[in-house]
């Protein structure tokens, strides 16, 4: 393409500033809404991924259920506290550094002297804190003796502590959850995050044995105590370590659950990578969905371009005739009009990304959550690339018909056009 063609296109656009800016506006709005909406999706994805990563990428997460693709209809055996105890044997060779079980959690209203709040109370093993990289800010953490004695003690998440004891030191205070009186022994460091699905800040942790004795006495047919999930922390995050860990866990659990050789697992072992991938994929779909909705306005912008280009071709029929008379070929005219529409759409795309980025920043500053949390947004490179390439495609797609119409004009008829 000749540089002169670009110049011709730009001067043609400059000759009709109002019209050009209105067409641009259509493009800008389309691209800005795509950018802003998709940035919300990307922000959420980033946030959740970061949380998962903070929890440690060397932790395997095990819960009950059939792996994807299994059509086994047999009832499954629930994961139990006894399973987690059995997995402890893996710590002997040093590849596993901790096994934590999370019992059935219950949402209870918790009352203290200076306040009350509704929180989730979760029974955990003492290893839960190190396995999930949680550290104690004040006081003590849960201990093995708390576990064996089914002690009525609690470690509070940072937010819970702040809500229940806005002015006082929570340590050694007593809180009441339903009919359960708990002695506060520690408060966790603030972890942050958790906009979508439970941050440890909002939880109250008690020994899993206490929870089983006082909150949920349900036992499996085998007489074991069911748990929600088991987390296994490995010594490092290398792929071999993770694969080997998962294999050992699998063989222990299959044996304990008496699963026949040809039957499927009745539990799912998820590596942090799997988890992040699964979450990203789900959010990615959500992001694309947002983008597609916004894409409708981009389509409208594109139709605006086509409309203006058609008007422009009709208006400039004589000009096209003159250009052809002095030797312009079809391709020259085609390129001239195509460049015009692509210039509008790409310029609109760039301005739209800027506006979308601004909107996205604005959204991230708004207190949207119940506690005034804001929604994280992220204008990532892939959004920019997508928006610009979609804009250029729209320009070409909606520009090609008018441009082709111009290019095919017969010189003498074009010259005679009034």
């Amino acid at each position: 393409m000749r540089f002169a063609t670009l110049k011709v296109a730009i001067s043609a656009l400059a000759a009709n500033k109002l019209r050009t800016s209105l067409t641009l506006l259509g493009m800008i709005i389309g691209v800005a809404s795509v950018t802003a909406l998709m940035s919300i999706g990307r922000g959420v994805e980033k946030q959740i991924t970061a949380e998962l990563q903070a929890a440690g990428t060397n932790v395997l997460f095990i819960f009950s259920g059939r792996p994807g693709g299994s059509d086994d209809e047999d009832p499954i055996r629930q994961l139990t506290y006894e399973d987690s105890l059995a997995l402890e044997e893996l710590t002997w060779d040093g590849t596993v550094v901790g096994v934590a079980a999370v019992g059935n959690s219950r949402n209870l209203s918790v009352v203290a002297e200076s306040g009350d709040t509704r929180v989730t109370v979760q029974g955990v093993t003492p290893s839960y804190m190190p396995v999930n990289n949680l550290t104690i800010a004040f006081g003590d953490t849960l201990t093995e003796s708390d576990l064996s004695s089914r002690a009525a003690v609690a470690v509070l998440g940072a937010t819970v502590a702040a809500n229940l004891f806005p002015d006082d030191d929570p340590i050694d205070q007593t809180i009441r959850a339903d009919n359960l009186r708990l002695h506060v022994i520690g408060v966790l460091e603030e972890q942050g995050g958790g906009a979508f699905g439970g941050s440890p800040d909002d939880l109250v942790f008690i020994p899993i044995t206490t929870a089983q004795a006082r909150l949920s006495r349900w036992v499996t047919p085998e007489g074991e105590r069911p748990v929600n999930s088991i987390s296994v922390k490995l010594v490092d995050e290398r792929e071999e370590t993770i694969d080997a860990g998962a294999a050992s866990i699998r063989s222990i659990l299959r044996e304990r659950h008496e699963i026949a050789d040809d039957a499927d697992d009745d539990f799912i072992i998820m590596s942090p990578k799997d988890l992040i991938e699964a979450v990203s994929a789900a959010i990615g779909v959500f992001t694309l969905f947002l983008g597609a909705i916004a894409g409708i306005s981009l389509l409208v912008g594109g139709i605006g371009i086509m409309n203006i280009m058609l008007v422009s071709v009709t208006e400039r029929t004589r000009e096209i005739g003159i250009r052809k008379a002095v030797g312009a070929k079809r391709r020259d005219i085609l390129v001239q009009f195509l460049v015009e529409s692509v210039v509008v759409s790409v310029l609109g795309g760039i301005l739209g990304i800027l506006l979308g980025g601004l909107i996205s920043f604005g959204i991230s500053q708004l207190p949207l959550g119940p506690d005034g949390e804001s929604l994280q947004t992220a204008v990532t490179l892939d959004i920019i690339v997508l928006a610009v390439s979609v804009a250029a495609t729209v320009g070409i797609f909606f520009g090609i018909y008018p441009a082709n119409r111009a290019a095919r004009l017969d010189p003498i008829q074009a010259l005679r056009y009034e």
Partner: protein
Amino acid sequence: MPETVIETNNLRKTYVMGDSEIHALDGVSVQISRGELLAITGPSGSGKSTLMNILGCLDRPDGGEYLLDGEDVSTLNDNRLAEIRNRQIGFVFQSFNLLPRVSALEQVELPLLYGGGSPGGKAARRAQAGAPVGGAAGVPDAQERVGMARDLMLQRGGASWRDRAREALIAVGLEDRMSHKPTELSGGQQQRVAIARALVTDPAIILADEPTGNLDSRTSEELMGLLLRLNSERGITVVFITHEDEIARQTNRIVRMMDGRIEAEERGEKGMDTAASADAPAASADASGPTAAANEPSTPTVTSPLETRR
């Protein structure tokens, strides 16, 4: 034998309007030699513009043959026709046909833009030959123009598009109007820009359809003078349509059209003294009287065909 640049045989162009047919061209055969200066006259509606548009490759005939430089144009595709319009033929319209809002210099650059050829070339050779057209009143004379063109040449190795456009504008006497837009130019000046545009790719042929039709008589004279000089000084083949007998007479040959046919051909006052036609061209040698048109054999000479006015 003078070289024939344009030859048509039995050209036809028919427009269908509803159920009536208009034979705008009803078998036109004409030969034009290199370097010839030819006027086409005839009453309104006789098919002059139709013929001119076909000769200029702006339009295609419905029948007959058109050989340009020996090449059968009717078989060429649109791209080749565009190339011919760009390089071999310069076309000047009655209504100027300049681009709106574009400076004179850029108007003249336009054909170069679509030529895609290397800057320099013929234009450079021409400037060295010192060929700018001689002086009209109030513009630099030939000597000065040659100087100006040389100066441009010295500043560069080969001529850039801009320089070639400048040269063409100097040649038509518009050196002080280069950045003017059509609305800032008089009619005569606009037509000069159009001639410069026709000239800039150094075509062998210039076709002009009533180039002075929209201009007053004084300006017409100046412009016709310019076209005649392009013919005599640069050897460009010039074919133009006019309704003015006086102007038509200043040529080598006058072709008179009527109802889509060539009614008569007549020798102009300029005679056959151009280099190209000096050695007795077959096509127009027997021009002691008007040459009989192919479709009207041996019609007695129309004694004063050019007296028929619009």
